């Protein structure tokens, strides 16, 4: 469960102070599917980084389960990301020199999983996203949808509690978008994940149980709309 209290994040850019998050108070129960929408520069990605233990707030508290993320050092945050949080990015963010299988394995490397188990679990993860025939392919040899599937497999192979997706369908066509969303939803349902999706796409957002809107660093709750 996420608990955010008075979270503010400011940046200094070109002698200007930018407030990306402004006294955000938010609670997200375990297992919830949340969509975060808002205009560009509204603070969506910053909020996702706070939730994903990628950054610390300038002030306020971010808590995930029993871990106070806002007070942990870099090493502890990295350990939480390694164990509890999976990421899916708009640009897939695969390592271009590694094969699909090896990309998935990178998520298990910091957990100290043995080579054989790492390989087996990665193969299973790729198979679960429908890429059992693509283990040895480099990202450049895969389509956008396939690359995003590899990224989802990488995010889920460590069996995280939370899956954070930043515009996961932003670079995909509509058909592929629906496939990816169905995949994410099936994992959310089957594994009891907390799924938080940042999106511009209302069609994607409508699939979520809960919708948040963020603008000027302020978060507001939108009524959930069934798809």
């Amino acid at each position, binding site marked *: 469960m996420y608990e955010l209290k008075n979270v503010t994040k400011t940046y200094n850019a070109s002698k200007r102070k930018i407030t990306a998050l402004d006294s955000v108070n938010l609670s997200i129960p375990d297992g919830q599917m949340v969509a975060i929408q808002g205009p560009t520069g509204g603070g969506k990605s910053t909020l996702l980084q706070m939730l994903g233990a*990628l950054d610390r707030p300038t002030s306020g508290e971010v808590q995930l389960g029993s871990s106070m993320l806002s007070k942990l050092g870099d090493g502890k945050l990295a350990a939480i990301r390694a164990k509890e949080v999976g990421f899916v990015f708009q640009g897939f963010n695969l390592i271009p020199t590694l094969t699909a299988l090896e990309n998935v394995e990178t998520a298990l490397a910091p957990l100290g999983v043995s080579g054989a188990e790492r390989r087996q679990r990665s193969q299973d993860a790729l198979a679960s996203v429908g890429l059992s025939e693509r283990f040895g392919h480099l990202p450049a040899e895969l389509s956008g949808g396939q690359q995003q599937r590899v990224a989802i497999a990488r995010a889920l192979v460590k069996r995280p509690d939370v899956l954070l997706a930043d515009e996961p369908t932003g670079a995909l066509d509509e058909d592929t978008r629906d496939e990816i969303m169905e995949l994410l939803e099936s994992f959310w349902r089957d594994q009891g994940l907390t799924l938080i999706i940042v999106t511009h796409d209302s069609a994607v957002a409508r699939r979520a149980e809960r919708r948040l809107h963020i603008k000027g660093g302020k978060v507001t709750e939108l009524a959930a709309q069934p798809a």
Partner: protein
Amino acid sequence: MFGTYLRRELVNRRKQTVIISIGMALAIGLVILVNSISAGVQGAQASVLQSVYGVGTDITISQAAVAPTAGAAPGAFAFGSGSGATAGGTTTLNQSTLTTSRTETVFDATQLDTVSATSGVSAATATLSLTNMTFSGQLPSQATGTSGTTGGAGGAVGGQAGSSTTQTAPTGGPDGAGGSSFSVDNFTVLGLDPTGASVGPLSAVTLASGRLLTAADVGTDNAVLDSSYATSASLATGGTISIGGTTFTIVGTVSSSGSDSVTASDVYIPLDVAQTLSSNVGKISNIYVTASSSSGVDQLATSLKSALPTATVSTQADLASTVSGSLSTASSLVSNLGTWLSILVLAAAFLIAILFTISGVTRRTREFGTLKAVGWSNRRIVSQVAGESVVQGLIGGAIGIVVGLVGVLVVNIIAPTLSGSAAATSAATGPGGGGAGGGFGAAAKAVASTTVTLQAPVTLGIILIAVGLAVLGGLLAGAIGGWRAARLRPAEALRSVG
């Protein structure tokens, strides 16, 4: 994962790997080549020095030359009115002098005891460096010269100047017309202790004929000749040679261990005999010292300098500077141009490795941000970057070792010949050392001219240095690149690409 990722990066980012490796390879190859040639030149210098100082001589001791006292004329010939044999109006003169060389200063032989008693001395022996000059010729007898003209060069005085005499044609002399004919010959003589051959000039010679001087030769008029000198003077083992007016039996001839070279002296005789004949009883001119350990030479030199404050103490390193000729040029080239070139190329290779690594890290910002997002720690990422750089350095090092060895092989196949010469009395060139005074010119020094073939040796040490430099270059580039990667905050790294 580390190995897989590293291998994939090196293979798939081939251009970077190749450029860094080639830069490193050139630098390492050059370091090996310069080091090997440098070792070869040092070996060649040692070879030249051995011709003069003998094998195993670590230190030589001499006394700086001093200005001659007024009126002193070492090696002057003294002819009285009754000197020589006169027959038919011609006087035949023959006289030898055995004196210390003009550039040598003798000192008390007891200093050898001081040296031998010094801690760190393994062996020491003393020598007395001398020059034998022989005047031999025919002059018109004084009785036959009644004219006012002078005789020939050399100062045979004739006639009574200023008196009114009847001019008559000169007679006598070798040409029967008042002329003169004479020659002046000189050769170097080294008095040495026949029992101390393990160190000193005779330790670096090869017996050409006969035998060397032994303990049984102490006090005897036996001599060993340099084979080149013996040939030029038409002398051979079993024959005799006049030294300082004494006839010596030639018991053997020796040649230098090096090719095309002469030994330290033309003639070798027992030290005690040399001292007596040259009126230098109890005196020596040089001490040759072998140190107990090669690493203790400098320390021993310092001890000897304090034990013998007025002496000139020279180590092999000091003596190496006395080697002249193309060998000296090569040595200077290697130590100056070669070393600086190595440093420059090495610095350039390190810089290329560092810049490419930093550039690679910058290009891989999103990659490292992603890895941080999936839980990779800074340490893991730094290790990855450093590992890639070290392996690139090692690949460059391995290629560099091959390049260097090929270069060394080419040098050894070409086998350039270098000439070098070293003067045995190098330490004695002080005031009054050369050219002053008349006589028959400056006394000859013992000079060994040697032609050596440059062989560049490759030692394990040189290879280890090369590998060490390759690892160092890789670590340096990896540390700087890794530091850059570690500084990337995951959120910023991901944000930087939108």
